[in-house]
């Protein structure tokens, strides 16, 4: 009997290694976790990634610059406008192309719409993990309105290929502004509803408050950026720090948290949605008239109407579509603030019409390193919560 009791006592402290994923609804994609558990406490954790690696960076090396755009969009499939902006911005810096003011504003509007879209997907799926099933439907209802707006302006709901080197492919259509204004007017009300649903929900609060805390110093060491870092009290936002697109001309705040727990991460993202709405509102008010794409025939397709009247335009069009444009040798790293943090694009040009290297510094990939710090020593249930709040998009992690 004593032996049995000792064996039973021994069982409680035995460390068991279990596998979660790669196909598991709570891993937000194909993420595999190898977790060492002692009872219900996580003692060690190893993320195993690469299940959706598709070699996009390698494929980009075999495409002319303008054909790379749809490839990079497909990395992080929830924030495609950001990838387009990172790549197009990097190439514009390589060739020294200034984009027109209207294009800057249009890009800003679409980036911020995409940020709201990305945060809505995050909020819906994470709340679903925590048992708040109805949140998914509310969030995806608004997400659908954003996708409708994307479809109206670009013809596609996802992977829109809307940004071009030099500006945007088309001006916004008639009626788009009214529809967007209606959305902008509704969205703060909706966000208020989400907060009402979650902020006084006992289950949600007890699962998010004081879980997954990582100190701000540790996050900085781990290279974590975006809402995760801001939730820990560090007001670092590339939109404020660096001068790109229309952000310097717009008035918006950078929400920060205090404790750095999962609840702060939720609060920061929800507040960011409101700030994005304000940015869109101002950008619509201040949207300048004028061209939406740069007038440089060496890099930008000539307008369709010119092709039947101008031989020169036809030649430019032919050259751009067949070979593409050549970019003088050089390298550029251009980083923007994506919904998940610093999204950098490194482009190496070797003088030919194809990039010699395209690398995306994806925020999810780097942020995932903080997951161990967030989870070790906590319960399995808190680990699932932390993973949701980390908001990794595995398409971006694996590329």
């Amino acid at each position, binding site marked *: 009997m004593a032996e049995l009791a000792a064996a039973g006592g021994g069982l409680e402290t035995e460390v068991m290694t279990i596998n979660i994923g790669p196909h598991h609804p709570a891993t937000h994609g194909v993420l595999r976790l190898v977790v060492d558990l002692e009872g219900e406490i996580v003692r060690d954790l190893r993320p195993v*990634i*690469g299940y959706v*690696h598709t*070699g996009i*960076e*390698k494929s980009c*090396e*075999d495409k002319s610059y303008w054909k790379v755009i749809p490839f990079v969009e497909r990395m992080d499939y929830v924030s495609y406008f950001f990838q387009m902006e990172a790549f197009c911005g990097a190439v514009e*810096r*390589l060739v*020294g192309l200034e984009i027109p003011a209207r294009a800057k504003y249009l890009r800003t509007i679409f980036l911020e719409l995409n940020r709201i879209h990305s945060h809505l997907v995050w909020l819906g799926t994470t709340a679903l993990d925590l048992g708040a099933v109805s949140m998914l439907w509310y969030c995806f209802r608004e997400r659908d309105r954003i996708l409708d707006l994307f479809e109206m302006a670009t013809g596609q709901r996802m992977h829109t290929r809307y940004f071009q080197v030099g500006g945007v492919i088309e001006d916004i259509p008639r009626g788009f502004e009214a529809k967007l204004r209606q959305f902008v007017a509704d969205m703060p009300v909706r966000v208020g509803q989400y907060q009402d649903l979650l902020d006084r929900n006992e289950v949600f609060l007890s699962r998010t408050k004081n879980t997954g805390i990582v100190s701000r110093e540790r996050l*900085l*060491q*781990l*290279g*974590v950026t975006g809402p995760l870092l801001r939730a820990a009290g560090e007001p*670092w936002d590339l939109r404020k*720090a*660096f001068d790109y697109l229309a952000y310097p001309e717009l008035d918006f705040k950078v929400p920060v948290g205090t404790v750095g727990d999962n609840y702060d991460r939720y609060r920061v993202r929800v507040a960011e949605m409101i700030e994005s709405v304000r940015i869109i509102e101002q950008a619509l008010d201040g949207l300048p008239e004028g061209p939406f794409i740069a007038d440089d025939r060496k890099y930008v397709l000539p307008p369709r109407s010119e092709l039947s009247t101008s031989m020169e335009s036809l030649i430019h069009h032919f050259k751009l579509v067949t070979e593409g444009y050549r970019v003088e040798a*050089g*390298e*550029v*790293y251009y*980083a923007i603030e994506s919904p998940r943090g*610093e999204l*950098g694009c*490194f482009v*190496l040009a070797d003088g030919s019409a194809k990039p*010699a*290297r395209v*690398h995306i*510094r994806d925020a999810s*990939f*780097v942020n*995932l*390193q903080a997951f161990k710090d967030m989870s070790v020593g906590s319960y399995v249930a808190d680990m699932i919560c932390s993973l949701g709040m980390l908001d990794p998009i595995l398409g971006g992690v*694996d*590329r």
Partner: protein
Amino acid sequence: MPDGPGLELIRGEIEQDHPGAVLETSFDREQAALVVDPAQVVAVLSWLRDAPGQGYRFLSSLHAADYYPAEPRFGIHYELLNRDRVERIRVKAMLREPATAGPVGAGDPPPLPVAKASSGAVPPAPPPADEALPEIDSCVELFPTAEFQEREVFDFFGIVFKGHPDMTRILLPDDYVGWPQRRDFPIGGEPVTFTYNEANYG
């Protein structure tokens, strides 16, 4: 960004502490870069991080590029960021491919392998097991964020980071052969079998 003269000042100061560490500076398209001696890269990074008045404490990105057929062909890029002054600086370490068993002339690039496999999809010949890989010191101690990124560089370029706690492939399968982001890696396809019948009777 430090401007051109600012970059030269930084170079001068590094020269005092680590003579010979900076091989070259470049200021191109508003981006400042220091090309450093690969043997001293960790010393330079730690100087940039800790020396008074520098404070490049945040490593934004670590990635590699293959400059083939130029020699030295591999470039490891460290994108450092000073968040107080909002300045970026790029540190670049250029690595040679270690001489393999075959007699390769000093200036000559190694012979080009077949660039594209035919539609028959011939898999690339596996490299010899004792393939010599370029090596550089790991900066994980200095910047813990580099852990995944160094593994990624190893995975795609076959560059070994000495002192890294877990130098294994990260995105590709562990049994993958070859370093696909190298510019001389043959592209064109590998045979993929989708069904049991295809594998056994196809």
